[in-house]
């Protein structure tokens, strides 16, 4: 595969890995707080924490990453880590993912996280820097400065078979 000249509008391997690392760090802290804080507060106030509270806190902590990724991708296309590195996840035509697609994408990514990470190597070979899961779900990850505001419906913009957006600033 030859390397196209317009791939600077999409997030590359290092950018996506950095955003993912930032999200992972954030979710680790948040998961610890969600799972440990309510039982701790309960113990401080009334004594031993009930089992149901421990189970509920753990369940919420387990669901938190999925809810986080799904909500961020569905609402704005960007997680906090993505905002840090300046990327947005959208469909190939530039529209927002939608709740279902975002939820499934997050579920698959979290369920088979090692495969997800290996699939990121596809960024290095694709003309639009798409990972394997991007091809699976018909999504792309664009750099923020190269994408117009994400719209709710498909309107104008390159389709799945069209070339990507104009080239970004030369690096």
């Amino acid at each position, binding site marked *: *595969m*030859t390397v196209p000249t317009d*791939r600077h509008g999409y*997030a*590359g391997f*290092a*950018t996506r890995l950095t955003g993912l690392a930032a999200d992972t760090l954030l979710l680790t802290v948040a998961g610890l707080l969600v799972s440990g804080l309510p039982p701790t507060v309960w113990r401080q106030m009334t004594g031993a924490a009930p089992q149901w509270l421990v189970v509920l806190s753990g369940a919420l902590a387990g669901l938190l990453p999925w809810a986080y990724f799904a909500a961020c991708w569905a609402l704005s296309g960007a997680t906090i880590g993505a905002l840090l*590195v*300046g990327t947005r996840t959208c469909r190939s035509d530039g529209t927002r993912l939608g709740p279902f697609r975002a939820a499934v994408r997050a579920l698959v990514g979290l369920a088979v996280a090692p495969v997800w990470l290996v699939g990121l190597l596809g960024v290095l070979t694709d003309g639009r820097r798409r990972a394997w899961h991007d091809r699976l779900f018909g999504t792309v990850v664009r750099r923020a400065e190269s994408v117009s505001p994400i719209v709710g419906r498909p309107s104008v913009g390159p389709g799945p078979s069209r070339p990507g957006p104009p080239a970004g600033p030369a690096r």
Partner: protein
Amino acid sequence: MDATEQERPDGRRRERSPGRLAVGLAGLAADRLKIAGLPGGGTLVTALGVAVEADAAARRRTREAADAARRRGAETADAVRTVVRAVDRFAPQPRFLTAPARWGADVVQDRLARARHAGEAVVREGRADAEKYVADRVGELLGWAGRQVVPVLLDAAVPQLVDDVVPRILDGVLPRVRDRVVPVIIDDLTSDPSVRDLVKEQSRGIVSAAAEQVRDTTGLADDRIESGLRRLFGGRP
């Protein structure tokens, strides 16, 4: 000799008036100004001379008016006596007898009124001239002082102030400022909405700059990784 009187060189006595004293003080001031090198010193003397002459003229007019009044009074008294005699003689014809006396009194009053008006005019004009002169001289004096005196004084005083006075003032004032003023200023700044907004904007700017740095760095890393792979695989990463 009375305290309000002085003796002239010609032996005559004269009264010491506040106006003349003021004129003398003005003359001394004019002498000082000439010594200081101010322009127009001759004009000052001339103006004072004019003022003195005007004053003398006014006094001469007043004295002449008074003499005239005295003469007219004597003449009137003579006329009155004549009239009295005439009345004794011509009692049945009073109007004929009193007409000359009335005419004399009118003449005296007219002379006195004209003399008063002339004196007032002299005083008014002299005062206006003096005010204009003083205003001009004060303006010139201030301008000269600003150009010539103040810079010299500052050049001489600044080293003294910097080396001696200011350190002593700071040593005395700084502890009080530190104890009393600084806490108040800090309280004001922390409670000032504009300062809070400024700090918020600066914090936001720092975060934005850091994020921009991260974006640039990761974007550069993307390109380097891909170009390295292209070199490794001969243009086919």
